[in-house]
Every structure is written in C-alpha cells, then in structure tokens.
C-alpha cells in the first residue's frame, strides 16, 4: 500500500456539478449532523455569468501530506493506509489550526456550550467513522456512519445527482475522469481540474497565484 495511487480520493467534475446540494444534505442526513455543519459544501463561482459559472462540491480532500495533521497541537489526526484522513474527537481541543492549514476549508467547529467556544473539529470522514469501535452506536454518534467498513461507498458520491462527485483510488478516479474528458472530445481549460491542479500540482500553483 505504499503506492500513492492506491489512496482513496474525491474528485468533483465541475462540468457535471449543478449545485444541487445532494452531497451536502445526504451527508448531513447520513451522519445526523447539527444544523449549520456541512462536511461537504457546494459553491458556485461567477453565479449567473454566462460562460463562466462553475459549481463545485468540496470537502476534505484527504490529502496525502495532510497539512492539518502537521499542525495539530494535540496530534489528533491519523491517516489510514487507504489514505483516509481521520481524527480523534476525544483528543481534539477545537483550536482551529487545522482549518488554517487546510487549503480547502474542510474543518468546521460546531459551537459548543458557553461563550461560543468551538467544540471538537468536525470534517468529512469519507464515511469511515473514527477511532472508536467500528459501527458502534457511539462511533455513529460521534463521527457518523462507517460506511466504508460496510463495504459501501461514501454517501455523498453514492447519491450525487449527476455523478459529478467521484471517489476511489486516485488511479481509478483519474482513469474514469480521463475517459469522461476524452469522450467529451475537448481539451477543457483550468476549471476541469481546478482543485487538483491547485492542490497537487506545483506548476499550476504558480500560474494560479499569479
């Protein structure tokens, strides 16, 4: 499992995403999240501008070099061999550093008790639960469903209305996406692989920041 391509990844095909919020609400329902917490978010850029409007669904990207895990002062993150980045809510103190380190704004902090203090961080688990006993009630209440352990696909991608959201090993996802793009028979520019270019490709980073 050393091969980096065997890690599980999300990818959102911006040519398919129509901002229907299915992934968001599916996730909220599956994990019974408190209102106001959306582990997955859908954002539309250039709303209403002809030729420029782009919608995209975004959540934790389960980075190979997860910056969140590098900055956590209590070291509550762990990365599974299949690449899923999880964290221990018992340990988490809700400091927010993971959010600052995250390029994608994935970590969120439910308000917890007095003074609006932030509670333990909450983010996409790729439907893989957390460090508690698998599929126990307490795991479900703390982290949500553990669908991966049931052999099921994460609920957001499983229910995506247009199959824009893909999940799988990065190898498989890119293979699938490549097939799709080839079928489209066109070489689309940046927005096709907006996130991945930015996140994983040093070359295009510079282009985009400039």
């Amino acid at each position, binding site marked *: 499992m050393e091969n980096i391509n065997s890690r599980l990844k999300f990818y959102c095909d911006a040519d398919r995403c129509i901002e229907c919020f299915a992934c968001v609400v599916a996730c909220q329902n599956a994990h019974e999240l408190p209102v106001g917490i959306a582990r997955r978010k859908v*954002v539309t850029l250039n709303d209403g501008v002809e030729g420029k409007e782009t919608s995209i669904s975004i959540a934790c990207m389960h980075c190979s070099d997860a910056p969140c895990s590098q900055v*956590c*002062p*209590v070291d509550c993150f762990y990365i599974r061999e299949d690449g899923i980045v999880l964290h221990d809510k018992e340990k988490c103190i809700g400091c*927010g550093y993971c*959010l600052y380190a995250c390029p994608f704004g994935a970590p969120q902090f439910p308000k917890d008790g007095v003074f609006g*203090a932030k509670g333990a961080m909450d983010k996409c688990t790729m439907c893989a639960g957390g460090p508690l006993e698998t599929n126990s009630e307490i795991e479900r209440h703390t982290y949500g469903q553990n669908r991966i352990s049931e052999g099921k696909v994460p609920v957001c991608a499983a229910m995506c209305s247009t199959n824009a959201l893909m999940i799988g090993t990065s190898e498989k996802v890119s293979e699938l996406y490549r097939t799709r793009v080839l079928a489209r028979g066109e070489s689309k520019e940046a927005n096709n692989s907006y996130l991945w270019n930015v996140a994983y490709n040093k070359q295009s980073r510079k282009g985009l920041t400039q």
Partner: protein
Amino acid sequence: MKKYRVLLSSLLLSMTSLYAISTGTYDDPLYGTAMLNAIPKYFAFGEVFTYLQREWFWKGFLIALFLVPVAGSIHYMIIGPKVFSHDGKKIFAFGLFMRIMHNLAALSFLVLVPTGFVMAFGDFFGGGTFVRVCKNLHGIATPVFAITVLPMIIAWIRDMIFNMDDVKWMMIVGGYLSKEKKPIPAGKFNAGQKAWFWIAMPGGILMILTGALMFFLNINLSPVATLFGVSQIDLLRISAIIHNVLGMVVATFFMVHVYMAAIAIKGAIHSMITGYKEEEEVAILHSSWYRKLKEEGKV
C-alpha cells in the same frame, strides 16, 4: 475615577459588540465562495503557517519556557536578589484603581501564559479534556486582561516614554549584573519595565484581537479582511502566526517580570499590593524619579 468608568464601559461595550456580529449570511465569510477563491492563494499564508507551526513554533515555545527559569536561576545563584530595607519610609507609587487593574492583568496572565504553553505542547499532555479546559480558560481569561489594557495605557503611557536614562540603564543592564547598590538611572519606570509595557500593552491588544479572531472564527470580518486585502481565512492564518510569535515574546517578558518582582528584588511585589515602595528601593532603582520627588518635596 470617572474617566476610568467611561473607559471601562466603552471597553466592555466594544467587546460585546464584537461578540454580537452575526454570521447569518447566505455566503459564509469563511466557508462559502470566499473559501474556494482562497484556494489558489493557499501557498502564501497557508503554507507559511503550516511550515511555522510544524517546524518552529514548538521550538520557540520550548526556548521561551526554559530561557527565563534557567537564566533566572543562574542570576540568582551568581548575583543573588536585591534586598532593600523594609524599615525605612515608604513612597506611595500606585493608586488603588491602578493596583486593581495591574493585579487583574497579572492574574489573567497567570492563567493565559501557562494555558498557552499547555496548548502549544498539547500533544505532550495528550490532548483531550485537560487541554480543552486550558483552551477555554485561555479564552475566559482574555476579557479579564482586556479590561485592564486601556486603563493601564492611559495611566502610564506618559511615564513609559523612553529617555536618556533608559539608554544608560540599558548600558548597565539595569545594574542587575552587579551586587552593588548604587543608584541606577531610571524614572518611575525603568527601561526594563518600559520595554515590558510596550510589549504587553500594544502587543497585548494585538494578542487579544488575533486571539478573538481565532476564537470566534467565522464571524463576518469581510470589512477587516478587505482592508488588508486578504481573505478571511488568510486573516486567520496571519492571526495565528502573530499570536504565536508574539506569544513567545510576551510569555518570556512576563516570566522576567515575575522573576524581578517576586524573586530578584525582594519585596518588590508589595508595591502592587499596598501601593508603597521602599524609599531605599526607589532611591537606588529609580534614582531619577526619587530625585524628582525630592525636588517636589514629596519625600
């Protein structure tokens, strides 16, 4: 006293209004479109923060944690504390209100600094409840400190302006490296105290602001963010960097201050309890002020 009350209430008001800014917009300042737009800019502050937090902050705090105790111990062993007569006359230095303010600040620092260290070394403590409680204490202590900042600034800022005495004071490191009791050039506050003031007060405000930002996280700060031309998440990242770096400095100076008041100058702490300093202490350590008081016939 009246002006303080006005000050106090305005301070409280500003604190609460900060609290009250709602997040009820369609497009969350943090998680909405802004977040997506911030992705390409991650490699500025995002990456810097990650790098600093991963590589440097813990080292900095480790140095801060041990520097003063070690240096203090050495100083104590080699040079020893300064002891002044407690039988002589006393000089009135600090009024009741300012003593309360100062001691509130001191109290809050006694919470802020250790809890700050606990957070910085959260993994050492294994995270969880203890560190979380410390985090919340850190937050709760902040308003206590915040209340005291403006009064202290207003009361002391004139005495805190650097002058030639301070240059001389610096040259001899305040006389702390010698066991001799000869008058040290200093006004009501010596250069060390002044330095502490300038770090603790403007720095303290900065700590409060950056801390509040990080504490409240997604209150809408788009006006501020626009002012600095950055996104809100970058504002947070900048805050985290400032808070950490400044935190180290403040913590270090705080420990020096405590060492001086409680250990290096025997009994100095009493001036902030009773308001009176020993005449001898003033004569030696604040010779310029002593001279001035004498000229004014207040001694």
